[in-house]
């Protein structure tokens, strides 16, 4: 583990041992992150709706795990990583909502009649199809992606952690900072919402 680096300098032998251990841990972590990073990125992107923010959240979660938890057994890395990632996602969501609130206040302060609403933007788009039509024309991937993005944050992340990532109820509860009962409720609601959203499309495929 990285704590093994904290061994006093005594001999060439111990130095080599420490270097070997740290190299081994570094390689294990690199493999772990390489295996998990794509799914983690997708999860963060679903929650944040911004690839750059998602990338930052994943990187911060990697750093958080490396700085604090590498001394823990390797099988704990995955739930710990997702716990940190969820924490980073929530931080970013909070910051984003504060920014939006201040942005709204600023726009109120700066609103005046010098900038009338753009007539082009106000014109209804007659080409846009209704949801049912849209759904029948899009492919499965797009439909599922849209349905997942439409879920509330906790239902969405519960679904992804439990169904996609295969985390246990307890691990999901820890990652999301809620009780195991709440996880079950969120998952049930997420499944119902997805079924409703995907509708007949789900059975046509």
């Amino acid at each position, binding site marked *: 583990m990285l704590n093994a680096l904290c061994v006093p300098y005594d001999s060439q032998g111990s130095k080599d041992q420490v*270097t070997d251990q740290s190299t081994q841990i570094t390689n294990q972590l690199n493999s772990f992150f390489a295996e998990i990073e794509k799914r983690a990125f997708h999860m963060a992107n679903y929650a944040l709706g911004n*690839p750059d923010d998602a990338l930052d959240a*994943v990187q911060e979660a*990697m750093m958080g795990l490396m700085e604090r938890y590498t001394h823990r057994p390797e099988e704990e890395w995955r739930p710990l990583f997702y716990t940190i990632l969820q924490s980073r996602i929530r931080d970013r969501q909070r910051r984003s909502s504060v920014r939006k609130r201040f942005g709204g206040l600023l726009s109120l302060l700066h609103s005046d009649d010098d900038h009338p609403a753009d007539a082009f933007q106000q014109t209804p788009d007659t080409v846009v199809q209704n949801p049912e039509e849209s759904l029948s024309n899009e492919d499965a991937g797009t439909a*599922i992606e849209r349905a997942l993005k439409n879920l509330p944050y906790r239902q969405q992340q519960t679904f992804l952690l439990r169904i*996609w990532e295969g985390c246990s109820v307890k691990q999901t509860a820890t990652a999301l900072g809620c009780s195991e009962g709440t996880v079950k409720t969120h998952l049930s609601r997420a499944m119902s919402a997805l079924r409703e959203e995907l509708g007949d499309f789900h059975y046509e495929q």
Partner: protein
Amino acid sequence: MNNEQQDELANKIRNQLDDAVAGMDGATQSKLRQARAQAMEKSLSTTRPFYWSLYNGRGRRWLPAGVALASVLMLAVLLVPLQPELPSSDQAGMLAAEDIEILSQPEELELYEDLEFYRWMSASEMG
């Protein structure tokens, strides 16, 4: 929705998500690799203790000087308690006052000077 339908839907979504990960575009994959490399480099540099530099790199050349300085400091710490304890200036003042008091009382000095005579007299009276 029964369990079978639920499992079917869950499987379908899971497969779709796996396909999305497998087909991730090269640019995003490259960004993720860079983010991982940066995270590992930053974390390792903050996790390493200060004496990690003694193992590798420039810190190694300062090792002899550091050892010598530590030895001097340890020697200084060990030697200081070995010096005899001298009376403080207050204590010295008090002792000098007592000496003067004794010296200023002549009768008591005579007693000490004739101590042998008084002992002989006491012994002969008892005998």
